[in-house]
């Protein structure tokens, strides 16, 4: 899987580094700082298919970032924490294809320091529930069999009931998670699309059916679960497709148990749209009526995206999702 594995000198003896290296079974090349090589030159995104490098590093600077207003359910502070850069999956709409200069993956190993920052954030919002999201720059479960950090974040949640952690994923790699005790403030959220659309655009990811199966397994184990229908990509039969997806979720008793369901229509920054056009010229993601929208992002025009989201919201409620659990993501006046 890995072309080369680079490790920062300073962390070469860190137990987490040694554990990861043992699992990847590849000799490490030592470097001073990961960004001496990582992102130094513009490496085309699709080269991740055959020459993906892994960097193990210590994250300096900002470990926690305040999320934009419309990021999660409204009224509470939302942060995302950065435990990795880049992802093993290849979703055609992913903003990571235009975000960094390289698709090479960085795994940060200083989770204790990230957790310290999370504790500081809690202190700055006394008496408020504070959300921490993983998975902004990388899938939060896909590599957990290598990284082994879940327990630390789980302990944090146990210690701080006022904090909520969301692990956002398309992965079915739940092995490490299953070793933990479910907590009310430790939520695993799955990004879902109708099966056929996921097959077309979520390259190298587990199928929607597999994701639902993993979701169901976690639910059965007592974990709190959530879902993101995001990004929604328009197709003529979108209502029927989402109805089918929701029906399957309902059959698995998932719809009524969702902590929340976010709905978001496909959107891009201008730069990522260009990158996606270049990387995936034959993708269905470019076939809709896109316009430059209220925040400069490229989206379907407003009547269309509101129509799509209203329709799917309605279908979700019919399938048993509690209306108060549904929110529209990154949408003005939503």
């Amino acid at each position, binding site marked *: 899987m890995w*072309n080369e594995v680079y490790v920062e000198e300073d962390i070469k003896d860190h137990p987490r580094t040694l554990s990861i290296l043992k699992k990847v079974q590849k000799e490490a090349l030592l470097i001073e700082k990961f960004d001496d090589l990582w992102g130094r030159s513009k490496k085309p995104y699709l080269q991740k298919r055959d020459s993906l490098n892994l960097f193990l590093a210590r994250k300096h600077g900002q470990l926690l970032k305040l999320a934009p207003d419309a990021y999660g359910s409204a009224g509470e502070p939302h942060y995302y924490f950065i435990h990795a850069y880049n992802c093993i999956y290849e979703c055609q709409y992913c903003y990571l294809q235009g975000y960094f200069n390289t698709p090479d993956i960085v795994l940060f190993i200083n989770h204790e320091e990230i957790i310290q920052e999370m504790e500081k954030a809690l202190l700055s919002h006394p008496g408020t529930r504070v959300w921490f999201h993983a998975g902004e720059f990388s899938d939060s479960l896909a590599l957990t069999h290598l990284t082994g950090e879940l327990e630390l974040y789980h302990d944090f949640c146990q210690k701080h009931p006022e904090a909520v952690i969301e692990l956002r994923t398309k992965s079915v790699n739940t092995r490490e998670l299953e070793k933990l005790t479910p907590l009310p403030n430790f939520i695993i959220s799955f990004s879902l699309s109708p099966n056929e659309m996921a097959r077309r655009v979520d390259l190298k990811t587990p199928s929607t059916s597999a994701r639902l199966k993993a979701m169901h397994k976690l639910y059965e184990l007592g974990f709190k679960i959530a879902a993101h229908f995001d990004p929604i990509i328009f197709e003529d039969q979108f209502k029927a497709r989402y109805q089918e997806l929701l029906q399957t979720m309902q059959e698995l008793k998932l719809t009524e148990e969702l902590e929340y369901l976010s709905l978001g229509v496909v959107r891009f920054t201008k730069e990522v749209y260009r990158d996606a056009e270049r990387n995936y010229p034959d993708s269905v993601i470019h076939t809709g009526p896109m316009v430059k929208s209220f925040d400069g992002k490229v989206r379907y025009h407003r009547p269309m995206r509101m129509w799509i989201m209203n329709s799917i919201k309605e279908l979700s409620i019919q399938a048993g999702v509690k209306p108060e659990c549904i929110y529209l993501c990154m949408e003005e006046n939503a």
Partner: protein
Amino acid sequence: MHLITMAHLGEAQGVIEKFHLQRITPELFNNEEMVLLLTGEGPFEAATKTALLIPRYPFTQIMNLGIAGSLKDHTVGEIFPVRTLYLIQDLKPSFKSFGSLEEGLDCLTSFERILDPQKAIKLQGLGHLVDREAWGVAMAAKTAGLPFTAFKIISDVAGTIDACEIIKDRAHEFSEKLASFLETYLNKNEDTKSEEKFSLPGFHFTFSTNHQLKNLLNKLSIKEQIRVEDLLATLPIDELRELKLAPKERARRLLDHMENRIDPLKAHLARKKEELQMLFQKHGLKLEIDGQWENPKLTISFEAGSDQEIQDKIQVLKTLSIDSFTKIMNGEICVE
């Protein structure tokens, strides 16, 4: 006209002979279709020499051809297309990289010869090959807006001290192989130049509507997952031909049909907009809606020549509603 760049005369000898190139200067050779430039080693030398030559000939494409050391396990003597070119200085990559072909190996152009195995190991994650000039040629080509490709023959394993000796010993063999490869490549390229075209008798497409047609055909073919040929059979081409319309109008209607298949709300929105505008117009009011349907607010304007006229318009405005517009902007649309 092709510009072929190679670093040294030793590598280029085969090309010079096979294509009967004439020597113009010690570094420049040509025939009627091709110019060969010997760039020497070093990315800046290659960039400068290539950039200075570009304005002197009507080049349509630039190719770098030559030897490279392998950072992986490639067979010596094998030729590979280059995918991406990176510049390496002090074993660190510089920001700018250049694309060559869709598929192939990644080449690192280094300021120094990589003779130390430890150095070679550090570079392994960054690319497959090491050379001394291709990045410079690519930079000059891309700056001039010319298509660039590179092909490399594996001459040695990077990081071996005796690499230079091996290259010298086999220079003639490498040079012959590169020349044969170039001949095959150029012939093949000529064969694939013909462009696919189709025409629709009875329809007139201008330059821009023709571009629109191709774009819509492509989008619909992707969206509906059918081949363009099959898609054409689903379009109302025959029906439109039977209508007594000017060929240009026929083309416009066909494009409208295709656009409505891309955006099923398009016709609905256009109709609603027209209805609303007519309603306001009837009362001497002008109503403007964002053409992109993005602004959730609309503009109403009117002309007035007296206070009374203003009062009259205000009275009329009180009786009018933009509720249908608000509903549309909130996605309350009934389209099946």
